[in-house]
């Protein structure tokens, strides 16, 4: 009985059946972290005491035969741009080196309500995936703040979902690009991804962009229904070798797979850069050294305090984003850049959504340029996308099409588990 070799789903089951305690689970994972962390450097903060205390509470609940949540005793790593009450949240930035949020992000709050246990805060970029891949936590919360162009999960042997924009509350996610930022689960398998999403999705009155499309879907009950009759689109010319076996499997399982020609252009990339930079420049204004975060030591006026704190506190990449964002929003260039980018965004959205009138799912292309255009389009349109370790592609669905994505991904996962993953 080794929790390190189990899925989150199994860990919870074994804790409830008292095969081992939540405390033992946490201890085991902490040991794993101490062993692996020097090689990976995935964590910025570990929550040892808090995690052990919560585990004890859950064990107590179980010993009293009380109901426990869907993530009972499961260790969860949280990316360091998602606020955790009383736990340092730095965005891996000098700017927020000492920032301790006075509240939990809604997603974190919901995971806690499901009796999940926050084990630590992961470094930015691909580290949420790395931590899960290295077995230091069965589940992590990721957010490619600002919509980074990387697709971390596909490099790390884990499943990663970017849910429909608005499905998971952004409240507590330190904003970079408000209209694109999303929190999503990273896990070792599809079902763990599903239980995490189910625990944290849904309406939040603190996030107006979530309230408007609130749904609460139970994906788990339909996930094994298979994909017979599903229509899957593959972008023209992108039946790459790496996708071939995947497509074959889908067909074998009763789905129809068709080539489509997709009017995607590099304009999507420009629109994406302009909008994400504009929003980031505005969102990052609050880091002025006045109320929290890094403050320059030497200043003679308020203006100088703000200027120096920002110059010294931000990294190079962020500064570039701020400069670009400030330019495209300035009154002189607003129409030529920001406004134009928003028009493009609407156009891209229409084009993208039109595909889903005829198809249930789209497989994203693999070639680097096209792949980037698709990534930008996913950010701009807010559709859900799932990365799997066994295919280089991502499965893209329509808005709130998570159910369809999970069905297809699960079917593929089962197929590949039974056969040999290496055959791909």
């Amino acid at each position: 009985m080794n929790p390190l070799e189990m899925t989150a789903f199994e860990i919870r089951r074994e804790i409830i059946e008292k095969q081992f305690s939540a405390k033992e689970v946490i201890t085991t994972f902490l040991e794993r972290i101490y062993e692996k962390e020097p090689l990976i450097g995935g964590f910025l903060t570990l929550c040892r005491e808090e995690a052990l205390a919560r585990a004890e509470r859950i064990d107590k609940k179980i010993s009293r035969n009380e109901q426990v949540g869907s993530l009972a005793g499961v260790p969860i790593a949280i990316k360091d741009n998602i606020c955790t009450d009383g736990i340092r949240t730095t965005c891996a930035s000098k700017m927020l080196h000492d920032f301790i949020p006075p509240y939990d992000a809604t997603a974190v709050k919901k995971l806690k309500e499901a009796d999940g246990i926050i084990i630590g805060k992961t470094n930015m970029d691909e580290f949420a995936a790395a931590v899960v891949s290295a077995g230091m936590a069965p589940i992590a919360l990721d957010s490619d703040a600002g919509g980074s162009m990387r697709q971390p999960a596909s490099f790390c042997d884990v499943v990663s979902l970017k849910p429909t924009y608005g499905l998971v509350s952004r409240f507590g996610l330190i904003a970079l690009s408000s209209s694109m930022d999303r929190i999503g689960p990273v896990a070792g398998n599809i079902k763990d991804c599903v239980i995490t999403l189910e625990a944290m999705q849904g309406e939040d009155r603190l996030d107006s962009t979530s309230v408007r499309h609130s749904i609460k879907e139970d994906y788990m009950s339909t996930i094994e229904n298979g994909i017979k009759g599903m229509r899957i689109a593959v972008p023209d010319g992108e039946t790459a070798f790496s996708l071939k076996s995947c497509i074959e499997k889908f067909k074998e399982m009763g789905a129809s797979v068709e080539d489509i020609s997709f009017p995607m252009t590099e304009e999507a990339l420009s629109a994406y850069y302009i909008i994400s930079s504009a929003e980031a420049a505005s969102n990052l204004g609050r880091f002025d050294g006045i109320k929290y975060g890094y403050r320059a030591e030497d200043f003679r006026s308020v203006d100088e305090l703000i200027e120096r704190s920002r110059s010294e506190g931000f990294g190079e990449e962020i500064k570039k984003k701020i400069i670009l964002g400030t330019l495209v929003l300035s009154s002189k260039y607003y129409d030529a850049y920001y406004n134009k980018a928003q028009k493009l965004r609407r156009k891209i959205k229409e084009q993208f959504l039109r595909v889903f009138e005829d198809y249930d799912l789209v497989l994203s292309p693999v070639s680097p340029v096209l792949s980037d255009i698709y990534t930008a389009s996913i950010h701009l349109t807010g559709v859900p996308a799932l990365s799997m370790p066994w295919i280089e592609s991502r499965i893209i669905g329509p808005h709130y099409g998570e159910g369809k994505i999970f069905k297809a991904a699960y079917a593929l996962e089962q197929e590949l588990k039974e056969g040999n993953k290496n055959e791909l």
Partner: protein
Amino acid sequence: MSFETVIGLEIHAELDTKSKLFCSCPTEFGANPNENTCPICLGIPGTLPALNAKAVTLVVKAGLILNCEINKESHMDRKNYFYPDLPKAYQITQYYTPVCKGGYVDIEAAGVSRRIRLNRIHMEEDAGKLIHLEADGVSLIDYNRAGIPLIEIVTEPDLRSPEEAVAFLIALKSMLEYGEISDCRMEQGSLRCDANISLRKKGQNALNTRVELKNLNSFKELKKALEYEEKRQKKLYTLKEEDKIVQETRRWEAVKEETIPMRSKEDADDYRYFPDPDLGPIIINDTLIREIKKNLPEMPVIRKKRFRELYGLKNKDIDIIVGYKALSEYYEALVSCGAEPKVGAKWILGSILKLLNEKGLKAEQIPIPPEELGKLIEIIEEGKISITAGQEVFSEMFRTGKDAENIIKEKGLSQISNRLELERIINSVLSNNPQSLSDYAAGKKQAAVFLMGQIMKASKGRANPQLANEILDERLKKGLL
């Protein structure tokens, strides 16, 4: 040369909501510094705004009252700039699409009625407040006001004199108060006014360079500042030095009674306005508009007309009473308690306003419930106490909150209408003033007035004057016989 003054106003009014525009912090005035704050209005990383629906309703109501067109769909925008009192480094406001477009307010100044057009009404959040402790060399920030909901009402440049500007602000304030949109307390900053002013030759259509005036915190300051600026600009035009009039913001210094430059147009920030991606569109449907229309309170213009027709009051008196919503409501309550409308008005315009002014109280703070004042008026009308005594009772009621009957009893103020008792007093007055009696007999009718005064004095003002006069008259005539 003959000049014409062109004035436009920008008025900020605090919306009368219980909570802030984007969080649930209370809006009440007078809390300890930073007491009314939370992670959202402090702009703590990760927090998001959620729009207060009551505020939207109030803006729409303001729009309907001020004859605006309501935008069915509007958005919140970010105005980006750095200042320590602005927690997010942007103010959430409406730049591209305000809730209300157009509109107008009818005013009367110097006997002339005019229609002043509005440009727009939009909704926005207030910023915090910086407190500079010069002696300690530090600045403190109070974020209690950060996120307080405001509306900004922008007029067209339709006002032609400082008097008109004041008349407009008075009319607008009264409409906002009647609509329960804002409590409009200028001294607490819940109503603030900026003014744009320029001069041009009479008959000229184009507008000349305008100057923006800030820090106009009362009707008086608004008028004085505009008059000062009008004079300053006129002088420069007359001296042909109009190039010295530059587009700038000037601050009214109430103590020095002058405007001084704050910043020029070149210093103005580029606010980089863009739609706030954290907030969806504000959709205002016909049902909501109908609902608000149905519940619109009576506006001052209508109330004035009604007071004229129903109570027969004079225009001048109506303007004062209806000018303050609370006063007009008090008046109606008083009348409904049975006070004769004109008598009631006399009390309000006289004793009540006098004491309110003396004590520095607002119309909503009249300490005497209208039914109690009604009782006092009734007692006086019935002749149970004299008018003079009535005034004394009123002052006592105002001061202590006690009711009229108790005060009359305690002070022994009830009027003496008992014939026997009055005769006794009069007899003693007459026997003490034999000289006056002989004067009267000698034809000096003045003596009767003196004797009446003595009677009132002897009765401590409680003698029923009519009856006392009657008895005195009888006695004097008898004496003559």
